[in-house]
């Protein structure tokens, strides 16, 4: 403090609150008590062994301990519930998978039995033909697979936290809808996405941030399998609106698209091909005839 102020006013007068807070943080009562004791002829500082002090320190330690325990374990029930819910989801999902497999097996048996019962007449042929078309039986044949995956950057958690930005490189329900429509348009005869056969009643949509096909959430990468004429179909798709759309997705949003033509691909049968309210009306019968629906309701 060698510099003298030009006026009486100290240079930091406008910051008295800050200076007093920074320069005298200690309770002035300590100094006052020390002065008082000195005036009475006792030492300026009291002993550190007084019972009052010990009680107070134990109390402070207790506050710190209780607070650290309570504040660090505050999230415990929440994370427990979360883990429980995740477990339930996985259980249910594997249950659904098992039942889907069972349904597929039963449907296959049903188709076989129907074929045996009906013999080889015109009605049986018509049943088989319809079953093929509506997706009640697994099909195989030439075609190609389209593998769509999110852009490399958007899959990470860091990108997901950026909110809207993360959606830029993600495969959306809209993309899959467009691609499947373009596949049908260019002559696909059967289409499945990640092993889910698309039928006339299939829906591709968004639920939250998950892509849902026929009420089953899918995980990336999305593999679209399409069967069709090996000579015409892949070229028709690539030259048509679908190919243009995919190249836009690839170039603009960085979505990874992989096309693979194959001579023999398999598309599984659709599960749950039941109509609950719609009935066939051409014969006027109350029960649908086996020829018009391949569902097990008739038997």
């Amino acid at each position, binding site marked *: 403090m060698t510099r003298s102020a030009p006026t009486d006013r100290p240079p930091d007068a406008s910051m008295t609150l800050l200076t007093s*807070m*920074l*320069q005298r*943080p*200690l*309770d002035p*009562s*300590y*100094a006052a*008590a*020390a002065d008082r*004791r000195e005036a009475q002829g006792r030492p*300026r*500082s*009291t*002993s*550190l*062994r*007084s019972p*009052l*002090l*010990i*009680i*107070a*320190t*134990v*109390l*402070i*330690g*207790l*506050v*710190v*301990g*209780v*607070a*650290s*325990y*309570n*504040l660090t374990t*505050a999230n415990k029930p929440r994370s427990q519930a979360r883990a429980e819910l995740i477990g339930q989801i996985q259980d249910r999902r594997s249950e659904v998978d098992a039942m889907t497999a069972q349904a597929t097996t039963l449907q296959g048996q049903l188709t076989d039995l129907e074929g045996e019962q009906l013999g080889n007449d015109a009605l049986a042929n018509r049943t088989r033909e319809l079953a093929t078309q509506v997706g009640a039986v697994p099909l195989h044949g030439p075609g190609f697979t389209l593998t769509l995956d999110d852009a490399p950057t958007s899959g990470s958690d860091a990108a997901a936290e950026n909110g809207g930005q993360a959606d830029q490189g993600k495969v959306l329900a809209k993309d899959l809808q467009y691609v499947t429509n373009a596949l049908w348009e260019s002559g696909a005869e059967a289409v499945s996405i990640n092993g889910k056969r698309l039928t006339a009643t299939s829906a591709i949509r968004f639920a939250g941030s998950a892509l849902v096909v026929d009420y089953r959430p899918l995980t990336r990468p999305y593999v679209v399998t399409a069967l069709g004429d090996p000579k015409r179909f892949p070229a028709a798709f690539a030259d048509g609106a679908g190919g243009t759309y995919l190249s836009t997705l690839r170039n603009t949003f960085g979505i990874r698209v992989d096309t693979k033509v194959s001579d023999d691909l398999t598309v599984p049968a659709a599960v749950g091909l039941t109509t609950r309210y719609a009935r066939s009306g051409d014969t006027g019968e109350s029960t649908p005839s086996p020829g018009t629906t391949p569902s097990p309701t008739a038997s």
Partner: protein
Amino acid sequence: MIPAIGLSLGIIIGLLLQPAVPVWLQPYLPIAVIAALDAVFGAVRAILDGIFDDKVFVISFLSNVIVAAFIVFLGDKLGVGAQLSTGVVVVLGVRIFSNVAAIRRHLFDA
């Protein structure tokens, strides 16, 4: 040394007993911890200055906790609880920092 033992004893008891703090009290816990830290560092500085007084220490701790809790309670009632909590933390934090600076000067001459 004895106060340090008392402090660690309290922390150990708190961690071992794991008492459940009622929900309405939980917003005050961080404030109480900050106020307690302020009192402790003030006491350490007073010891090094040679002017420690146990009654002043106890009263400053209790009044710190009570006033800080009251400010937060009032802020909750007025709808500015978070802002007033921040204010309390800032004021006590500044005091803790400058007390620690004084302690550092005492111990290391730096």
